[in-house]
């Protein structure tokens, strides 16, 4: 029994060593910009770069639009499937898992071929159209996570009874969705939203192949042209990912707290 415990500690310590060395490495490297001493010069250089601000802002904006569109697309669908088409749930669920099966690079290849300037829906012809296509692509990437989160959220409430109660009080579909369903799955929706944010903010393949000035392609460009700035960017990206995950934990914990109080 004692030897089992020792082996457990060894496995855990080896894992931690592997996980933390690259994090320490990237942080240490990002401080080396000034010769002979540690400094935050690389960060200053990155944060002062107008390209950084432009691309980061673009990606944040894309993430926000993706989240809004994703919520508008997923919440009514999950609701409707639970209410009226329960038998089709496996089919819909299967569709939402497809983005995990088909590599994103293949799907975006399809976009480029299908929606080019000579097609019936020439989305890539204009900057605005390409932005729209990119947003659809990001929604597609986030679909498995968003759908799963909202579906789990709706499982805890009795959709049928609540909807009938609302209808007998005279509520329309929009009212039911906005004032009954959405508040009930808010935690799930927020979890999905933060995960979407984490995915979109550093995404590279879709943005690069659709030629949009997003943060991912900017990072790759910096990686090819600068020495210490990429490490600083990696630290920033890591902090953003941590923040998103921390927010998910926070909203989940807060909601568990309020639920417990209500009982």
């Amino acid at each position, binding site marked *: 029994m004692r030897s089992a415990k020792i*082996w457990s500690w060894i496995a855990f310590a080896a894992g931690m060593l592997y996980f933390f060395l690259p994090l320490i490495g990237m942080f240490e490297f990002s401080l080396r910009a000034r010769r002979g001493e540690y400094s935050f010069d690389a960060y200053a250089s990155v944060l002062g770069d107008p390209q950084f601000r432009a691309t980061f802002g673009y990606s944040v904006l894309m993430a926000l639009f993706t989240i809004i569109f994703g919520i508008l697309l997923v919440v009514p669908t999950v609701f409707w499937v639970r209410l009226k088409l329960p038998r089709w749930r496996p089919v819909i669920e299967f569709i939402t898992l*497809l983005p995990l099966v088909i590599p994103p690079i293949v799907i975006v290849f399809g976009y480029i*071929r299908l929606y080019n300037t000579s097609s019936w829906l020439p989305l890539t012809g204009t900057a605005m159209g390409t932005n729209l296509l990119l947003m659809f692509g990001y929604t597609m990437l986030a679909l498995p996570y968003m759908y799963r989160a909202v579906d789990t959220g709706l499982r805890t409430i009795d959709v049928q009874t609540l909807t009938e109660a609302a209808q007998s009080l005279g509520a329309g579909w929009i009212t039911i969705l906005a004032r009954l369903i959405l508040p009930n799955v808010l935690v799930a929706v927020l979890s999905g939203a933060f995960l979407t944010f984490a995915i979109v903010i550093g995404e590279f393949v879709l943005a690069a192949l659709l030629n949009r000035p997003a943060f991912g392609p900017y990072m790759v460009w910096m990686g090819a042209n600068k020495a210490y700035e990429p490490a600083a960017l990696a630290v920033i990206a890591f902090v953003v990912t941590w923040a998103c995950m921390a927010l998910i934990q926070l909203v989940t914990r807060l909601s568990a707290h309020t639920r417990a109080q209500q009982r």
Partner: protein
Amino acid sequence: MTDLPPPKAGRRVSLPLNWFGVAPFLLFALLFLILPTMHIVLGAFRTPAGDFTLANIRGIFTASIMNAFWISIRISLLTAFLGCVAGFLIAAAVTRGGLPGPLRGALLTFSGVASNFAGVPLAFAFIATLGRLGFLTVILREWFGFNLYGTGFNLISFLGLTLTYLYFQIPLMILIVTPALDGLKREWKEAAETLGATGAQYWRMVALPVLWPSFLGTFALLFANSFGAVATAMALTGSSLSIVPIILFAQIRGDVLQDPHLGYAIAFGMILLTGIANLVYIVLRTRAERWVK
């Protein structure tokens, strides 16, 4: 035999109305998921003029593209295997090894972050750590007098890419296997001990056979996961290492060959491999769930 009740008349009318509610979703899935994929798959079997052909598929079997597929498959198999083993050992240590309880929550939270910390920043972190001037390379040289690059090690290589991919593979395994480990019932262990089994015998003859389907399933998932990874490889190697996603990327950008139909065929090969891997995952996952709960 009793008479069957007559079919309800109202059912026919209400069906299209019911579908109306999911129409936006189905339209979205069709336009931005299914049609683009179909276009690629069909394109792989078509000439530019639109006739059926197998020439594109045959185009994959040229030395350079076959080689890229082979490297990709080997990297994916190796990182899936190592990711499974390492992730399992760490998860088992935390759930079953008697380590303090708070470590478990911390590990799961960290795994959630690390499995999402893929792509470009991950490549930068490894360059900063194991690159020629990286943190670890420098420490090994100055403190231990060990010249890592003198041994022929190079981060921009098969080994380097494997080491980097493991950073998102291991946490994913931890996240998936922890619930399965929790599903191992205490009674099984007690029963095994009553019958005189040692700890190793319990793992070999009880726990591992139960976990086996979920093991293999996760292996398939990790395989697909690393096979489709593009951004990490691009940022790490530029385009000097020819793995399939990088070749496809170059093909789409149009910097290599101007034959989109060969691109279709390569993409089709990717779908085929990740599709099979995911199918294996789904099938084994449902088998594994019999034991959990």
